[in-house]
């Protein structure tokens, strides 16, 4: 209960007119910047950090918290409306979000679902953070390189059958993603790999231009290719505010996955370096095991809810190690940490004892930011969905410019643009040949994490395999899950062959 009192005290700090104003400003700006593809939450927080210089420390920190948090909301907007993920967790949102907005012609509901789920997930994450606080950070510490490696292995194995209709294609593209991710400096020894003497490739392929090209630029080409009549928009019906509200039935569909993912996402967010992408991915993977009204990937409310809730819960969960240990869970977290330290806040083991009013003020401001962002987001959705009624001939050049700017703005050089164009062409060819590119993007994000942790784990265990997979109770459980996932299709095939299981009728 002590924590609850402290949180209450935090609210009394936050709820002054000036602080609410700062929180509101932070939320609006964060939302706008987060919604711009290519800028994303990392650059968004870095860009907007200097704005806080004008305020007193408490207000500045509240604004930072709001900025960070609302950035997470923004990423889903472009994923749903344009099929361009604003940041890496939004790759998952696009899987169901874009089909729901275009094929099912329910863009308003798709955005509402994303925001409601984010709100639910975020709130769950913050409640867990409030009650468990520093203890939560200690849970994360139990995940060493070995445990992380097996966890990521579980995630990587499920990519293929999780996303898209053809598991074989999924596995092939996962491998391509891994190959592309291995370009650049080796993580453990610092030696160059696959750079072919090129100085730019030494730094590897960057995610932002890669994803914008593979998804966004490929989208431009697809639109040009497919649309015979480019004067019409993708959606011809009139979009009204009333028509975009969620029905009670939709609410019932989104709530269970949002709550499940919210709890799971919080714990994934606490793990060192796992971040929101792993959270969103596992949330979606878990949803596969539950009942869905529409099949996942075809625009299911459950799909959007599962990954968005996990994403925001992970963002909240990552505050536990950030505040209690001074360890940022992501690049964005690192920038935020820098901002907090600039204001004299010293995240670390002593924070909750030395500066409770700062720490709890920040947590309280996250609650406030979560609520404010939801309200703002709900307010702008009716405006945003108008994007879809823009004729294709207008939208094509706009997306093209967004892609070019997004590719450039990652490192402020033409290297990003070139990567964007090449991956765009490849993405288009792949989609055209019936390959879904999402597994490649996910493998690209997760592979470096897996490699890094796997190699560290093997160094620690001295090359012993059992020292990695059976190192602790956590490892053993995860290894069993991993084997189960990997063996299920094989066992099923054998059983079917022996006639134990009935052959599924082809659809």
């Amino acid at each position: 209960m002590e924590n609850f009192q402290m949180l209450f005290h935090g609210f009394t700090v936050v709820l002054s007119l000036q602080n609410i104003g700062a929180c509101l400003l932070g939320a609006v700006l964060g939302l706008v910047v987060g919604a711009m593809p290519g800028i994303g939450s990392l650059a968004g927080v870095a860009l907007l950090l200097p704005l806080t210089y004008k305020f007193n420390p408490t207000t500045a920190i509240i604004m930072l918290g709001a900025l960070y948090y609302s950035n997470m909301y923004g990423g889903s907007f472009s994923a749903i409306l344009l099929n361009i993920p604003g940041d890496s967790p939004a790759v998952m949102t696009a899987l169901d979000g874009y089909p729901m907005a275009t094929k099912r012609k329910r863009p308003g509901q798709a955005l509402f679902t994303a925001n409601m789920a984010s709100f639910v997930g975020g709130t769950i994450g913050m409640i867990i953070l409030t009650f468990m606080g520093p203890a939560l950070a200690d849970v994360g510490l139990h995940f060493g390189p070995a445990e992380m490696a097996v966890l990521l292995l579980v995630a990587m194995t499920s990519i293929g059958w999780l996303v898209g209709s053809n598991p074989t294609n999924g596995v092939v593209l996962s491998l391509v993603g891994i190959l592309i991710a291995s370009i650049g400096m080796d993580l453990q020894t610092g030696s160059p790999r696959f750079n072919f003497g090129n100085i730019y490739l030494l730094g590897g392929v960057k995610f932002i231009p890669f994803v914008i090209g593979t998804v966004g630029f490929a989208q431009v080409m697809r639109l040009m290719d497919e649309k015979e009549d480019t004067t019409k928009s993708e959606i011809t019906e009139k979009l009204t505010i009333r028509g975009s509200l969620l029905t009670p039935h939709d609410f019932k569909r989104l709530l269970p996955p949002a709550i499940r993912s919210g709890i799971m996402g919080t714990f994934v967010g606490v793990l060192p370096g796992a971040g929101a992408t792993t959270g969103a991915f596992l949330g979606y993977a878990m949803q596969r095991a539950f009942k869905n009204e529409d099949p996942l990937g075809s625009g299911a409310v459950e799909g959007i809810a599962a990954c968005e809730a996990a994403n925001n819960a992970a963002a909240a969960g990552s505050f536990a190690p950030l505040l209690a240990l001074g360890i940022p869970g992501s690049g964005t977290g690192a920038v935020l940490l820098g901002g907090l330290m600039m204001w004299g806040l010293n995240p670390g083991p002593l924070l909750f004892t030395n500066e409770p009013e700062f720490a709890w003020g920040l947590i309280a401001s996250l609650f406030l930011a979560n609520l404010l962002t939801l309200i703002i987001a709900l307010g702008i959705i009716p405006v945003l969905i108008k994007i879809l009624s823009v004729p294709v001939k207008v939208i094509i050049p706009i997306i093209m410019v967004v892609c070019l700017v997004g590719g450039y703005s990652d490192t402020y050089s033409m290297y990003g643009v070139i990567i964007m164009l090449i991956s765009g062409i490849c993405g288009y060819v792949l989609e055209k040949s019936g390959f879904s590119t999402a597994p490649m993007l996910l493998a690209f994000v997760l592979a470096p994490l897996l490699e890094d942790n796997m190699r560290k784990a093997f160094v620690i265990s001295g090359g012993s395999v059992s020292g990695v997979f059976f190192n602790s109770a956590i490892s053993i459980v995860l290894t069993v899950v991993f084997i189960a996932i990997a063996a299920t299709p094989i066992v099923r095939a054998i059983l079917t062959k022996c006639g134990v299981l009935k052959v599924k009728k082809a659809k």
Partner: protein
Amino acid sequence: MKKFLAVALVMMLSLALFANGTQEGGAASGFTPTKDVEWTCTSKPGGGSDIFTQQIKDALKTQGITDANVVISYVTDGGGEVGRLQVAMTGKNKADYTLLTFNSGDLMPMVKNTDNRIENFTPLAVMAVDKQLLFIGENAKYKTWQEVLDAIKAGKKVVIAGSKGDDIETYNKLIAELGVSEAQLSYITNDSTSGAITSLLGGHVDLCMSKPAAAAQYVEAGKMKAVLALSESRFTAPSLKDAPTLSEFGYNNVEVPVWRGVVGPKAMSEEAAAFWSECLRQVSESQVWQENYIAKNGLVSEFKDYKAAKEYMTQYQADYLKSLGK
């Protein structure tokens, strides 16, 4: 708290005003900047090199050291190698107006992975030096360095976690000096020191290599304890002074200084080099710099002018090349 901060802020600002009056035009003559200065930083905004660069830029302005307009450009492609190459190849007409933040952690990958060398730059200054220590966690298996040595001798495997660049070099020198193999005393590379600290706090590794600043609050909270100073002499800070150096165990001391400096292109004129070196000396002596950067990050302020810096960096490169066997 608020009042204190306000007072501190006013004091800092007024200090800057005074300084403005006294130090104007203090830099060496022979060259005066007349154009915008482009300062290349090879880390992202908010990264370590950026904070270093921003602090110098602010001090140059607030202390009235030079009126030159400094523009920071971030060139992060190729792990920073693109930016370093661009600066190295800058031609005569822009050379006097081009600066680059250059640390030991930049020199190592550059020398290792590219053909770019310190000879392609004009070193201007070394601003600060940092040294490493080895730490144990709260529930460590080995409580002292002697226990670690005994464990290695008994054939047990000990694991150190650390960061990239300088840390790896320090580790290599350490195992060479101890005469043990990588399998006996292993090293895992993390993206940053905070990653290494995470592994130590979680009890996944035995030791963690860190600079004093990154470990300070964990030491204060009793979560980490220094067991070995990788330095020629013991540290003086109260929380670190109990950590022995390697020579106290009958070995030679291992010290790989981590330095932060500034360089210009090779084509930079001698006058400009002297001018910038003098500007940086004034920054390094200013109170703002000493308080906001050196003290805050627990660094050792060690200024070397452009002549000394050239010698120092060239020697550092030679040592490193030798350890690589190049």
